[in-house]
């Protein structure tokens, strides 16, 4: 069994799963859980994009 993912998709899948757990465990109400999970997901995914551009700028 092998699983093919691009690097970006792997980062997004990681962000989704980690954000789900962070949202549920770090907040008390369903609304806050969703908001915090979404916040973590945006930070994870946004961090990947920012880091990618930084590496591109360093290379060029």
């Amino acid at each position, binding site marked *: *069994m*092998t*699983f*093919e*993912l691009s*690097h970006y998709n*792997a980062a997004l*899948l*990681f962000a*989704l*799963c*980690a954000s*789900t*757990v*962070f949202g*549920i*465990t770090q907040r*008390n*109400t369903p609304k806050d859980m969703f908001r915090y999970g979404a916040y973590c997901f945006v930070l994870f995914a946004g961090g990947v994009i920012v880091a990618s551009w930084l590496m591109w700028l360093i290379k060029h």
Partner: protein
Amino acid sequence: MANPQNPAAARQRIVESEASHPLAKIAPLAGWFFPGLGHFIQRRWIRGLLLMLAVLILFFAGLGMQGKVYQFNTGSLLDMLGFVGDLGSGLLYFLARAMEWGGGNIHRAVADYGTKYIVVAGLLNVIAAVDAHHIAIGKKP
């Protein structure tokens, strides 16, 4: 009379509630043993299901990417920590070891991601187990 704002009194209340509630010890153990089980036994069905899916997806995606499952070792610090992280997955870890999954593949860059997926699945499962404990002692609704 105990002051409700007193930290010592608050700690005492938590210790008493831990001692009085039978789920305080069972829930985190169940949550560690299988992802989400600590929430299921407290009837937090949706939270348990989402936690279970998140950990299972990370763990099996990691295996699918040919990530490595660490064995007990006394080698480098990172290898030892990797073993501790993997062990957080509970039953999934023992299943992977028993089935000899997770041999790793140093020729694939994505396999290294898979190794991290498996470690993080274990660490997230520990966080979920602690959350189950907090629910059991009444610290969280």
